């Protein structure tokens, strides 16, 4: 039995936690406990729904073979997982939705970057063949390849850092969350051509995330802000 995926997951969760703690030191309006609960709950729900969706898509009956749910390596449906995670986050943060999602978005991008960097622990960073100077080969092979997972992680880290800097300027609620979704979509869309895959990734959905997130960010940023209530 292999547990290398677990290391990747721990890198992701660890990245999320450290990013939240670091952000809270710079931005005292953040409530780390609430955001941690929402992000973790959304992640667990997304993983469970994504795994069930993958089983159904592969023709494995989840009722007859309930134990197979824990075999994460056998496949997780990215679109179903993302939709479930976003839905759960929206539900858990519903009392102050846009502010909660804004607070969480940069840290979630760092957490996702941690998951992709976890490829170094499970030796699965490589994509299509490449002769670029930084390409490398898997052990026992002479075919050098794009370290595509590191590219994805780099986009996510840069995006997370940019969004956190933007957050310190207090943009309109919802702007950071929309931009975060766009960065997540971009990170996969830009690197998909360098991934090796039997079926190809859900490129259309990555595009939906990019355009939908960017549209939401622009819409939120250009909305008039509510006037502060006047006393007396």
């Amino acid at each position, binding site marked *: *039995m*292999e547990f290398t995926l677990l290391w990747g997951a721990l890198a992701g969760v660890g990245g999320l936690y450290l990013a939240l703690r670091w952000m809270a030191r710079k931005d005292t309006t953040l409530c780390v406990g609430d955001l941690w609960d929402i992000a973790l709950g959304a992640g667990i729900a997304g993983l469970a729904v994504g795994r069930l969706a993958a089983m159904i898509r*592969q023709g494995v*009956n989840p009722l*007859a073979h309930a134990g197979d749910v824990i*075999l994460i390596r*056998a496949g997780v449906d990215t679109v179903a997982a993302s939709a479930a995670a976003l839905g759960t986050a929206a539900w858990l943060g519903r009392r102050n939705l846009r502010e909660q999602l804004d607070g969480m978005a940069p840290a979630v991008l760092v957490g996702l970057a941690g998951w992709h960097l976890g490829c170094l622990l499970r030796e699965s960073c490589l994509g299509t063949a490449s002769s670029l100077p930084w390409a490398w080969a898997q052990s026992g092979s002479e*075919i050098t390849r794009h370290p595509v997972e590191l590219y994805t992680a780099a986009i996510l880290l840069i995006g997370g850092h940019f969004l956190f800097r933007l957050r310190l300027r207090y943009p309109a609620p919802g702007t950071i969350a929309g931009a975060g979704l766009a960065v997540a979509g971009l990170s996969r869309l830009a690197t998909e051509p360098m991934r090796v895959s*039997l*079926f190809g990734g859900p490129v259309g959905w990555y595009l939906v995330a990019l355009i939908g997130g960017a549209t939401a960010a622009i819409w939120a940023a250009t909305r008039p802000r509510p006037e502060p209530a006047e006393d007396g």
Partner: protein
Amino acid sequence: MPVVVAVLAAGCSAAVDPGDVGLLPAITPGEVQELLAGSTEPVVLNVWASWCIPCRSEAPLLREAQASFGGEIRFVGISVRDSQRSARSFLNEFGLDSFEQFFDRDGVVPGTLGGRGVPHKFFFAPGGELLELHFGVIDERTLALNLDELLRRGS
């Protein structure tokens, strides 16, 4: 709603029978070596068993891979420490009967190639050079990468 009903119905269905899948031929370590040495195509050798839960989870992926690359890569399966009826039922259930399938009741063949446990997969270049040995369930990206390596290094 129809999807839920279909899932429930499938969950309550009786055990799958072997269908048209015939008896799997037995194979010895020497015969496997001959098969690999004589192959002009790269070979993916999958070691599996019907009682192995991870094997069931990865079976649809392997079926799709064989459907996509079966013309360029030879997909071979060896059922180990299993019964003929259970193994054939498994192949019938997952549509893996288009693989070249063999039967190794005592599970001695994989050990002679360096394998252990179930499932695991060997990736061989034409002529039988072992390029990669993967233990446990294989995910789609890892399988795709190893198939790409086989095609590039085998050509």
